[in-house]
């Protein structure tokens, strides 16, 4: 049932500002642009008091829906829950804090009207503390190197997306963060919209070391998803060979020296050689199990997505699933 123009999904997972103020600020430009809209707030259980504060607005008839989750879940799950009941012909995701100015929303939606599948806000010019800008540089340099990304501002959570596209993306784990990259990988058109930074966001936020560790793991997970999910052995085999090969060389040299009369049993380097060899074999064996999973599920999924067909039977004219 798609009976409104826009569904704005607000996932409340970290240090949210007042949701009432957020709604009032971001609904204004939507109303002004003449689009019908609804807001869905999906909140981590920790932030229930904040969603409770929306009750008076709901009572007054504001198009607000609140999704309560009993479990402690992340942003990606909240997004999927909200997307499942979204009624909009377009979906906008909005973090619960202010990243960009509210007038960005109509600009993103205009981009969808122009044929984009995903439109993402790009904070430009970036006004932030020096530390945060440096972090941002590092993140995008890493992404650019590892996954050949061309998105300028992955960390900005303000995005407009067609609901059909959202439903097809592999959103699990913490991958909602990298939504534009996943969309690009599946061949969707992703447009960037330069947007002014919200005055509130200029104060600069500080993150604990745990956040960096999680980001690093996220990026590694993304790298694996984008590059190796179809060929796990190439990854495990490479790393395994790098471990096993030096191990094998060490043992071979020691073996030759042993033939030459030098003792081997009292040399700790033998331990190192065996250790490396064992680790390498373990990794390659893991890769084989990975390949087995890929092979056994290959008949049920396709690694490509169709843009369309011409002159085929009607039945196959639909766009195909992606892997």
């Amino acid at each position, binding site marked *: 049932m798609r009976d409104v123009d826009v569904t704005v999904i607000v996932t409340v997972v970290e240090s949210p500002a007042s949701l009432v103020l957020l709604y009032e600020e971001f609904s204004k430009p939507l109303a002004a642009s003449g689009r019908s809209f609804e807001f869905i707030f999906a909140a981590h259980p920790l932030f229930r008091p904040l969603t409770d504060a929306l009750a008076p607005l709901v009572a007054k008839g504001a198009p607000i829906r609140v999704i309560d989750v009993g479990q402690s879940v992340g942003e990606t799950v909240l997004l999927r829950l909200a997307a499942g009941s979204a009624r909009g012909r377009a979906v906008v995701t909005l973090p619960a804090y202010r990243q960009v100015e509210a007038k960005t929303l109509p600009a993103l939606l205009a981009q969808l009207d122009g044929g984009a599948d995903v439109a993402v806000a790009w904070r430009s010019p970036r006004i932030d503390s020096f530390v945060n800008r440096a972090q941002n540089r590092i993140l995008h340099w890493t992404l650019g190197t590892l996954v050949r990304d061309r998105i300028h501002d992955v960390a900005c959570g303000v995005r407009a997306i067609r609901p059909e596209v959202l439903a097809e993306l592999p959103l699990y784990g913490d991958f909602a963060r990298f939504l534009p990259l996943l969309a690009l990988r599946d061949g969707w058109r992703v447009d960037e919209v330069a947007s002014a930074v919200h005055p509130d966001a200029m104060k600069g936020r500080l993150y604990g070391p745990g956040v960096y560790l999680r980001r690093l793991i996220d990026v590694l997970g993304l790298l694996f998803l984008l590059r190796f999910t179809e060929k796990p052995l*190439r990854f495990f085999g490479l790393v395994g060979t790098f471990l096993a090969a030096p191990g094998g060389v060490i043992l071979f040299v020691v073996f030759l020296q042993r033939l030459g009369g030098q003792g081997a049993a009292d040399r700790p380097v033998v331990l190192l050689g065996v250790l490396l060899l064992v680790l390498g074999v*373990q990794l390659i*064996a893991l890769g084989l199990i990975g390949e087995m999973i890929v092979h056994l599920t290959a008949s049920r999924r396709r*690694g490509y997505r169709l843009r369309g067909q011409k002159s085929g*039977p009607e039945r196959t004219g639909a766009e195909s699933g992606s892997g």
Partner: protein
Amino acid sequence: MPDQTRYPTLTHLEDAPALSVVAPLYNEEENVAPLVEAVRAALADHPSWELVLVDDGSRDRTAELVAAQAAADPRVRLVQLARNYGQTQATQAGFDAARGAVLVGMDGDLQNDPTEIPRLVAKLDEGYDLVAGYRLNRQDKLVSRKLPSWVANRIIRAITRVDVRDNGCSLKAYRRETIQRMHLYSDMHRFLPALAAATAGARITEIPVRHHARRFGKSKYGASRILKILADLLTLTWIAWFRERPLRLFGLAGTIASAFAALFGASWVFSALVAQSLERPWGYVLPGCALLWLVLAFYLLMLGFIGEVVLRRAREESPELLPLAFERKS
């Protein structure tokens, strides 16, 4: 359950043609019209065929030109991928869309000669599941193309034991049943015969085909493929030999590791007896090595069990098609 609605399936249709020719195209705008023309001329005597052209996310006008050809001749069909996925996925997309009882794959660059198609199909009718073409007088550069290809084919043959001398030649004919039993992913288009033998038990033969130098466009291959090919070959060998019994390979590997553990353990005991002491360095080097090998043996055995779990779950969810089989007429 397999979701059959999400991609075009290999279902035989009432009005389906007898023969489907499938060619992936990537930035081949100059080759579209000559290719269609050549196939049309080659199959002029054939009663019912279709040409499935897969546009693999080309950045030039390939898709547009194929669409125009399709509009003019209903036997030509365009399958357009959302982005550039590579030859394996493009080929699979073409096979998925093809409706014929016999499928012929070929390159989109006109280096394969379409006039060979009837010969391939005729050979298939003699009772084969896959007929591979091998290129006579291959018209490519020696060092950058032919030499790596020769090495790769040697390795592929040695490892897969499938006697096809030219895996790189795309011109091949398949029975639909063969294609239904194999699923292309990663870079498997290089090993189609080996994959067909491994997963479908296909009866394979080969015939020589003519090969032309590239007239238009550029080659999309690089020479640095050999490492990837090796990894894929290991995969293929693994699939061919052990996909029905993963525990057997892992159990075997675990046994070898245990043997090493026993070897190091025995030499430790021997050294200790000779020296009458455990205090010397071999007091930790040898038992340490023995323990590491033991850990590996245990780990491999456990992985084998995981493999069995994976296999069982996969088979419960989607029963495998039985291998190709034939009842002999006496």
